[in-house]
């Protein structure tokens, strides 16, 4: 019991203002708090706990430990835009990728020799497998309604098997297309 009172006292007075209409209670709590703090080994303005570190325990990875900087070439920009089917929009977008790569390069200071890659936190659990039978269906209409362009029971797409135009032409195409 005494323990829990002390705990309350340790925590509550830190509020820089009293609750409305509970001045007297606050004072009483503050009194308890003094008693508790005095009995604590290190009493000063706030309660210490030696287990909590007082200063940062690590520093960011230093640049000199990283592999050489990777510059993203115009060819790579083109390749990524074709693969991702999104555009960098401007030079700032490219610089942003370079920064993202630089940030990721910090991985290389970690020794991962003989470490198995982890792709799921459920790797040791047996997961439920349902019977391979249809439980739902008959919702083609609901699903088709969500599309902008359909014909009978088909989604309608423009002509396929045409590669994206070259970069300059592509920029022009996208420039005119805003939401």
């Amino acid at each position, binding site marked *: 019991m005494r323990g829990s009172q002390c705990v309350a006292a340790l925590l509550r007075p830190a509020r820089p203002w009293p609750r409305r209409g509970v001045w007297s209670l606050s004072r009483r709590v503050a009194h308890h708090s003094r008693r508790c703090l005095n009995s604590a080994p290190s009493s000063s303005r706030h309660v210490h706990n030696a287990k909590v570190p007082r200063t940062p325990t690590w520093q960011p990875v230093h640049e000199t430990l990283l592999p050489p900087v990777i510059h993203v070439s115009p060819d790579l920009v083109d390749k990524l835009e074709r693969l991702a*089917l999104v555009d960098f929009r401007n030079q700032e*977008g490219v610089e942003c*990728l370079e920064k993202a790569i630089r940030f990721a390069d910090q991985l290389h200071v970690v020794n991962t020799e003989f470490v198995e890659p982890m792709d799921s936190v459920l790797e040791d659990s047996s997961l439920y497998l349902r019977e391979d039978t249809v439980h739902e269906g008959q919702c083609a209409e609901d699903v088709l309604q*969500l599309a902008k*362009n359909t014909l009978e029971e088909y*989604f309608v797409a423009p002509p396929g098997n045409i590669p994206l135009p070259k970069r300059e032409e592509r920029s022009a195409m996208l420039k005119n297309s805003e939401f």
Partner: protein
Amino acid sequence: TQAGITALRAAEPLKGLGWPGNPVSVALREGRVSATDLCRKCLQRIRETHYLNAYISVTEELAMQQAEEAELRLLRGEPRGILDGVPFSVKDNFCTQGVETTCASLMLKGYTPPFNATVVQKLLDQGAVLLGKTNLDEFAMGSGSTDSSFGPVRNPWSEAVTGGRSSMELGSDWAIAGGSSGGSAAAVASLSCYLSLGSDTGGSTRNPGALCGVVALKPTYGVLSRHGLIPLVNSMDVPGILTRRVCDAAIVLDILRGPDERDSTTVPSPALDCALTEELDLTRITVGIPQEYHAPGLSPETARQWERVAAALAAAGARVREVSLPHTQHSIVCYHVLCCSEVASNMARFDGLEYGHRSSVETSTDALYAATRHEGFNDVVRRRILAGNYFLLKQNYERYFVKAQQVRRLIADDFSRVFCSGVDVLLTPTTLCDAPTYTHFTQEDNRTRSTQEDVFTQPVNMAGLPAVSVPVALSARGLPISLQLIGSKMQDKKLLSVAHWLEQQVDFPQICFRGDDEARERTQGV
């Protein structure tokens, strides 16, 4: 049942709802408040706090209809469950049948799903009343709720007058809500709903919960179904729970948990019933203080709260001991690579053909895809997709993606080692400092901010562990400071028991807006 009595203790009265200290669910069942009145008051609160931009859509008509149905059931004495008639909100990346679901992106503007996410359906099955969909960073990518196509979310504490101090020394600036579930956190903090669903991939529920001063729970991976949660990083995403009280989070978790045939990654989990009504014997609890969680940039105020709570736990009889999670520093880097890679894959589904936005460029299928994605995604989303595609290139796959998966195992192993050594919970800060101002926060880009803000939260997602953020004090600026408790896998109940104890000790102040006092006085005793 006992759980019903502690349900949703609405100690913080909704404006005009004069029952401080009474559980709202009990008040509903005893007829002291009607479900329609409660719903109306919440909707009124949403209108009054419109400037927070917490909601993307408010389903006023539907909510009133659900409230009327709940009221009839309650009058007949046949409530569907503890939450019958209780208003809630949902982050706008959970599918809701017949209600627009946007992910705060132009890509999904106007998208109305034909089904409910499992977690949403479970709340509706309980009779809970859906008020609306809450704001977020586009596709949940961010840590500020500043990158939404519907505009940024404001932190309610920025507008509060708690303790007679007004809105800090911010001038015309305001504090951010944190993210990406900033709308959900702001909605619960501003008392416009009793609970909100968020999502947590690298801290997206705990971060805004911490900055907005509400309880924010990220359960063990696999306990809650992800079916209907529009995916960001499948191997880390979990639905999150934001409430005013720890016991509320426990009740909601108990309702939502369980295997789902529609999500093959769900697993059975132990029941939580009456989890928090038993007295917790702290002398049987060992609390670990991970030394690496004093990271560069941790604010002195937050560090002080961390120390104070550690001291309080020790004073109450808990064993508090130093532990080491040596790979903590590398976790955020690993997260960055895995997140971008999974995003690159997940975002491939948005092509304009089947649902969502479709560009008018029709010269070829690829041109349609490229133009649709150009128009629909913001810079943040596009940049993550491009970085992910880079990490997944044939020549980079081993060097970045597989390397990150290896580091992920080291991080998960760090946690396992500590929990196997007899530690029950870990105590850490949730964020480096209290909520920054909008002007300050937006001086750096989204990627930089996420790597700073998620430093304490994402390691847990790597390992699939449960964690909860609990507000413990207000900073000198009058903004919440919160601490995080981390549990071992499937120990959500133990985690919440310690969080419940902590919450009772710290007595975090109640938010109060201008005008609330008069309204409360008018209705008290009625």
